[in-house]
């Protein structure tokens, strides 16, 4: 599904962008001042833009598929223009085309399309890929490398694909899904005609049109058709029986869990203000920014109470923004974590890695009974860090930080192998040799830390490891079969057996006796 990116162009021209060149004038003259295209130029400008390459290309692959679908919906449709833009940090002297040696100067690309019917004629960004902002606190897991032809050569850029709606065959929902699914599907991308076919089969009316948007039922059907598990919540539906639901299960929990797992999340929300009306928008999130100096956790405003005076400090508290695309305005925006008010967020869906049976919020909650049940043990330990954790987790404060990560067994084992604690100890090689054959292929790793240690050192006390491949059972919500092990300073804990519903534990000494680094995203 790469044809539209790799097809040779019909022409080629480059424009140096140093003064007096104006992106404003260029976009006005060539792209009708389209906001999303301007955003692409702005991103490139902030990355040191020196030159733009502009190529006309023929519609093939996914673009041809789209044009065919639009024609079936609008017989008077015609594609007016299809342009491939390349953004560079170097100039190409004497109008030469980029050579392989110019790869390091490649910022990103955008394929822009002008569609026309009898009632409208608009440019939109069919797709664009730019890398994330290069800052260590800007976290975008699970990016994908996209190959694109510019001139006579192929270049690569890594990021999360951005797509814009065109009000013809795709609305915000279809493009949001493509953004998140393109990086994980075996075909490498997805055609809108395929999305819409599934949506049509799950529409409430037989004459459903793509521009009507997608319902959660249609979104779920699309995800299920690709065997992509998810966890979602419709706050409007839940409010019918629980007026506190938006506070009890905040939407940020789903977004953060989806982002951290590398699968992403979608947030459906209504606009604010008197002119907003009933229209609802949905956008994809795939990253977040970390701010170690966030005031919120210390101010006790981030304590997440799950009920019955049990809670914790989610690591999401140090997230200042989520990173996502807005199909109306462009790619790679930082949306402040609390910008969309709970009253506006109507639907959120956390995508899960393949075969996962429950989400990150459930993983974090599942770890709580064991963590807090251990507190008497930790407080009486001779290990200083266990004592500190016990003090933070005391019932009158419960200042334990949790961070749930979906990782493969291999990733976890490499992490354990590479860990060095604050006293420069590494794990016992006998334990590292013992574990591999005894862990499921996928894991929820719920990292456990305390305030100051988590944001300042980006370190943890240890982790609770869960099996994500065991389905949730409402009649046994605390299924101990999901628990694999707990690793805390100086000890591993296992459930030896469950007798009359009560787990019996054993432990094994660990050579990691103090805090260690977090699993990096």
């Amino acid at each position, binding site marked *: 599904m790469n044809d539209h990116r790799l097809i040779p162009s019909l022409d080629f021209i480059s424009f140096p962008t140093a003064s007096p060149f104006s992106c404003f004038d260029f976009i006005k003259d060539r792209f009708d001042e389209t906001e999303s295209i301007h955003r692409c130029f702005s991103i490139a400008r902030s990355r040191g833009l020196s030159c733009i390459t502009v190529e006309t290309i023929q519609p093939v692959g996914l673009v041809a598929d789209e044009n065919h679908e639009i024609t079936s919906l609008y017989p008077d449709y015609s594609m007016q223009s299809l342009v491939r833009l390349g953004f560079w940090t170097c100039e190409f002297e004497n109008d030469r085309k980029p050579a392989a040696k110019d790869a390091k100067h490649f910022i990103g690309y955008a394929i822009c399309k002008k569609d026309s019917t009898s009632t409208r004629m608009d440019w939109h960004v069919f797709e664009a890929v730019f890398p994330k902002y290069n800052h260590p606190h800007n976290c975008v897991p699970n990016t994908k490398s996209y190959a694109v032809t510019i001139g006579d050569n192929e270049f690569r850029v890594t990021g999360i694909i951005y797509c814009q709606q065109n009000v013809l065959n795709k609305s915000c929902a279809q493009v949001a899904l493509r953004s998140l699914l393109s990086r994980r599907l075996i075909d490498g991308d997805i055609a809108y005609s395929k999305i819409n076919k599934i949506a049509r089969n799950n529409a409430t009316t037989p004459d459903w049109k793509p521009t009507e948007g997608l319902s959660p039922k249609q979104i779920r059907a699309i995800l299920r058709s690709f065997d992509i598990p998810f966890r979602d919540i419709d706050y409007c539906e839940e409010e019918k029986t629980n007026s506190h639901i938006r506070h009890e299960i905040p939407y940020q929990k789903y977004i953060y869990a989806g982002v951290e797992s590398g699968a992403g999340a979608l947030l459906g929300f209504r606009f604010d203000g008197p002119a907003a009306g009933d229209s609802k928008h949905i956008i994809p999130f795939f990253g977040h920014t970390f701010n170690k100096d966030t005031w919120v956790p210390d101010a006790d405003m981030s304590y997440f109470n799950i009920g019955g005076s049990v809670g914790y400090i989610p690591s999401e508290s140090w997230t200042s923004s989520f990173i996502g695309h807005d199909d109306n305005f462009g790619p790679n925006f930082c949306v402040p974590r609390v910008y969309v008010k709970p009253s506006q967020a109507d639907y959120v869906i956390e995508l899960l890695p393949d075969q996962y049976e429950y989400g990150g*919020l459930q993983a974090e909650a599942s770890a709580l009974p064991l963590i807090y049940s251990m507190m008497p043990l930790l407080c009486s330990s001779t290990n200083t860090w266990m004592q500190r954790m016990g003090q933070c987790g005391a019932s009158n404060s419960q200042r334990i930080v949790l961070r749930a990560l979906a990782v493969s067994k291999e990733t976890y084992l490499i992490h354990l192998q590479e860990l060095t604690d604050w006293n420069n100890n590494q794990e016992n090689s006998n334990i590292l040799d013992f574990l591999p054959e005894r862990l499921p292929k996928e894991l929820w790793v719920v990292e456990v830390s305390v305030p100051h240690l988590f944001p300042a050192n980006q370190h943890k006390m240890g982790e609770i490891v869960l099996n994500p491949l065991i389905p949730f059972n409402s009649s046994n919500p605390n299924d101990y079969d999901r628990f694999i092990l707990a690793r805390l300073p100086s000890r591993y804990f296992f459930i030896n057996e469950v007798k009359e519903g009560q787990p019996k534990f054993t432990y094994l000494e660990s050579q990691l006796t103090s805090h260690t680094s977090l699993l990096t995203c």
Partner: protein
Amino acid sequence: MVDQKSFTSSKIAHEAAKVFGDKVKPISIEMQYCQEVGTFLKKVESAHQRAENSQLLFK
């Protein structure tokens, strides 16, 4: 193909006892907050099930 649900903590515990002998020791931990957490987990899962009935539309 190995059943991924068969990887349980008790299986690890028993095999650890065979491999590491008396280095694996019992320890008493009285579980707390299971009911509260179970209630929360059921709430999250029920909300997920009910989302199938959603009447929302995003465009």
